[in-house]
């Protein structure tokens, strides 16, 4: 079990290194002198020369890469043009919102997607099942930002129940009650993902219910509900868990748009703003952090999968 974890960690590390090369190359692929890309269009020639030397941009590319990696490992992700602050602290400022949003969303997704998928599977073929499956497919076809805008229209503008934008920190005045700012965004973000998890749970349970060992369980005289929970669901869970990593990635992507719609001060919105403001070092830093996070999540999912399914071995 641990050797498996070690092997997966090794594979993840290699992928991370390769990804870091791409992220590093990003700045250099943007059209224009990388110095201006880094300093912004308003830099003076003197500043440019000074920076060129300090940043070691007169060095060969390979050396620059290792310098960058070295700096990153020390926590120095560079300097934001727009905020005029170290990028790491900019990211940290925006992290709270995104972490909370992601967590709450995942809770909705699992709380809604899994049980409803289970119900649809156990009532396979009925109107309920067909209706739920159709609804799930519909939800997966809807653009997140459209749902978001409608949420704002209905719940914020017309009904006035909930705020439509922004998010004061939990540490500010209001405390936990400030979470209500995240209610609409998290529901918006949860909708398509819950639909996906619903369909996955349902399909997985249907597949498992056709397997021979379920017939054996029935033959043993076990009551139908226990067959569903202990044999079908337990085995179907594998497929759902392995989709976790993928769901997380989808969540990050869609969070970018959702945070923009609801004007949440999160990392997703930071990315979009940085693109529009040409704050390229920030984009680079954020993408690096996100990729690391994503790879770690995938790694954890892989290892836990091994824990859940004793048959798994590294291919």
């Amino acid at each position: 079990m641990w050797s498996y974890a070690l092997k997966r960690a090794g594979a993840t590390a290699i992928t991370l290194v390769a990804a870091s090369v791409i992220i590093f190359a990003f700045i250099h692929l943007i059209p224009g002198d990388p110095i201006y890309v880094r300093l912004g269009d308003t830099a003076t020639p003197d500043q440019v020369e000074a920076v060129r030397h300090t940043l070691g941009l007169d060095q060969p590319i390979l050396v620059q890469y290792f310098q960058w990696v070295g700096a990153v490992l020390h926590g120095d992700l560079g300097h934001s043009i727009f905020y005029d602050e170290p990028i790491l602290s900019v990211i940290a400022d925006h992290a709270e919102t995104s972490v909370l949003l992601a967590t709450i969303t995942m809770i909705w997704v699992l709380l809604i997607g899994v049980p409803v998928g289970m119900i649809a599977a156990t009532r396979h073929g009925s109107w309920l099942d067909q209706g739920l499956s159709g609804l799930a497919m519909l939800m997966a076809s809807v653009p997140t930002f459209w749902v978001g805008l409608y949420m704002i229209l209905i719940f914020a503008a017309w009904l006035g129940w909930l705020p439509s934008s922004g998010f004061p920190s939990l540490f500010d005045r209001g405390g936990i009650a400030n979470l209500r700012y995240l209610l609409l965004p998290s529901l918006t973000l949860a909708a398509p993902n819950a639909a996906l998890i619903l369909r996955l749970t349902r399909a997985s349970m249907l597949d498992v219910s056709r397997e021979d060992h379920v017939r054996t369980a029935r033959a043993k005289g076990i009551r139908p509900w226990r067959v569903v929970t202990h044999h079908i669901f337990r085995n179907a869970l594998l497929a759902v868990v392995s989709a976790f990593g993928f769901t997380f990635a989808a969540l990050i992507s869609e969070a970018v748009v959702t945070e923009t719609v609801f004007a949440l001060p999160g990392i997703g919105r930071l990315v979009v703003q940085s693109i529009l403001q040409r704050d390229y070092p920030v984009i680079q830093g954020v993408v690096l952090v996100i990729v690391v996070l994503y790879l770690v999540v995938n790694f954890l999912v892989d290892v836990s999968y091994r824990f859940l399914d004793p048959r798994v071995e590294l291919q």
Partner: protein
Amino acid sequence: MLSVSNLTVSIGPQARPVDIVSDVSFSIAPGEILGLVGESGCGKSMTSLAVMGLLPHPGPRIRSGRVEIDGADVTGLEPWQRVEAGRARMAMIFQEPMTSLNPVRRIGDQIAEAVRVYERLHAAATRERARELLELVRIPDADLQLSAYPHQLSGGMRQRVMIAMALASRPQLLIADEPTTALDVTVQYQILGLLRELSARLSMATLFITHDMGVVAQLADRVAVMYAGCIVETASASALFRHPAHPYTRALMDCMPVRGIRGQSLRTIPGQAPQPGTILVGCAFAPRCPNAREICRTTAPPRLDVGISHEALCVFPVTGEAAA
């Protein structure tokens, strides 16, 4: 003690059902092993599932007939319903030991689960009972195997585990659907021996389904031959092998290669069995029967007594000794 009377299983719409098992009747006494033989598609598995109450929903259903175990009518009841009703203890083992066990749960847990259906014991007692069951089926290192996962065991061991789980209920009836087909010949021999021993020791009625005449010869006390959804001959094993009365049974015996004679060309039965569900007029075997006459194609054959407890579904049952 099992008694199956006029069991008919059909598929298709209610208005126009298609029979895949027609009017099947047989009985098994405690300690007796009945071999149900026939080629693929003849309906033997469907019969066993119907007897057990495991017909898949939606799909085939029991259209008529009765299944009684020790006098209790359990027709159409699913296994859990039978347990609830407190009637009839029965168990079933299947063909593919690879896939018939839950791959993500330990053997011990799966056996314990079977035990708990019938007895509410605390954890240690249940585990002890599971170990006893493993020993009953001759699995070495029972304690170790309780914590093992199915994929860590060989095919033969897995089948023994299946049998152990089946015995958890102290069943009056054991149904075995081709349990050795997927195993090596040497392992097959051991499992068959185990089944014979258990059947006698526990006074269990056993319904053993197979397409292999050789297995039937080794194991069964009595034999029922199935063709196209009907039982065409029932007899004791010795009687069946010595004077098979139905032309189909005869043909099957003739197909078996004779030991010791080189260069025999293998015989086959010309033609093909009718597809499950084709509407038949007259005898189902008539198109392939060497003795068929006009009447065979027009009238359904009667069930005739051809000996002591020996019946054949034929207008002109064959008399005389078998060829080999």
